């Protein structure tokens, strides 16, 4: 079994319109995987046999057929974990939940996105019902709450009435609709602790519909063109300067490589993704030294 977790965005279509959505304004890559992309991903899954296939979006339950074809391509399904990050739109009643979960040839974990933004589209009771059915069927279940500030965590109280499911929270980034609507998580001042952190996506690679493979799922992929960040094949990406640098370096090292000084950092750069975007925007600095020659 491979050492990687491969996360796939099979499409950008969603049946919600959350005001904080990171991928809502991405359209130039197309709304779903092309036939060629499905073929490429099937071959990638076959060759690399990632230990986990995670599907997100958009809303992944709108792309069941494509997802099933990718799961079927995996050579070791008994040891494979399938995870779905969903908005839970189908959790209107037990039958609908069962029908949706059963439509996947394999499913191990449901990660429900639920926060004050998603709550405009589904009531918390649906989150509770989905949790209950997942527990009954032996599926792992967790909730991800997007935060624009710590106060947004209060929705966790409402969710806890349904059980002690694991809850994680994610600080909203200045990407997509969140950027347009000014909903990014705010920092009072720059926090230097971020310099000793590294990219949170270590061990993961993403396939972004219509774009390609990248370790980045964030600003470098969705906020304009950053050369060398996305590659047409997984092999090319794993050999790239970007992947080798970001997967092995702390942000202080990336800063040194980019020739960026502390004086250029603002409070918003306390976010690893915002800091990374800032550093890679500075790659044209003569101080930047690539690890290898560009292809």
């Amino acid at each position, binding site marked *: 079994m491979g050492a990687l977790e491969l996360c796939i965005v099979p499409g950008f279509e969603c049946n919600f319109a959350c005001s904080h959505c990171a991928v809502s304004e991405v359209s130039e890559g197309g709304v779903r995987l092309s036939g060629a992309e499905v073929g490429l991903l099937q071959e990638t899954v076959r060759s690399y046999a990632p230990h986990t296939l995670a599907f997100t979006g958009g809303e992944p339950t709108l792309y069941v057929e494509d997802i099933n074809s990718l799961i079927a391509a995996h050579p070791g399904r008994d040891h494979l974990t399938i995870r779905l990050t969903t908005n839970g739109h189908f959790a209107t009643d037990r039958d609908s939940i069962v029908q949706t979960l059963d439509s996947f040839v394999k499913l191990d974990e449901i990660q429900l996105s639920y926060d004050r933004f998603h709550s405009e589209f589904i009531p918390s009771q649906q989150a509770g019902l989905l949790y209950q059915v997942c527990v009954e069927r032996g599926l792992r279940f967790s909730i991800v709450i997007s935060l624009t500030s710590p106060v947004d965590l209060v929705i966790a109280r409402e969710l806890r009435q349904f059980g002690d499911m*694991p809850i994680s929270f994610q600080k909203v980034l200045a990407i997509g609709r969140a950027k347009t609507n000014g909903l990014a998580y705010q920092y009072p001042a720059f926090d230097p602790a971020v310099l000793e952190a590294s990219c949170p996506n270590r061990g993961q690679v993403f396939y972004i519909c219509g774009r390609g493979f990248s370790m980045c799922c964030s600003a470098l992929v969705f906020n304009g063109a950053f050369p060398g960040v996305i590659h047409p094949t997984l092999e090319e990406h794993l050999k790239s300067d970007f992947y080798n640098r970001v997967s092995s370096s702390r942000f202080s090292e990336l800063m040194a490589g980019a020739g960026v000084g502390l004086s250029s950092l603002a409070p918003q750069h306390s976010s690893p993704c915002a800091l990374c975007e800032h550093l890679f925007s500075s790659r044209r600095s003569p101080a930047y030294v690539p690890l290898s020659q560009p292809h």
Partner: protein
Amino acid sequence: MDIKKKVLIGFVVSMGLYSAANAVQYVNSLSTQEKESLMSTIKDTKAPMSVCGGSVIGVKSVA
């Protein structure tokens, strides 16, 4: 600094929401209602919660 502020600062820091310095500034900026809401959350949500990095499309498993 009153005990409620200390609890809120401790919570915000322990959950990885802010560094200690930023947490003090943040808590000082909260309204009374916001402080009460957060305090209730601290009391009522005993089961584990954790912070994730990356964007919303890239959340690692916490289940």
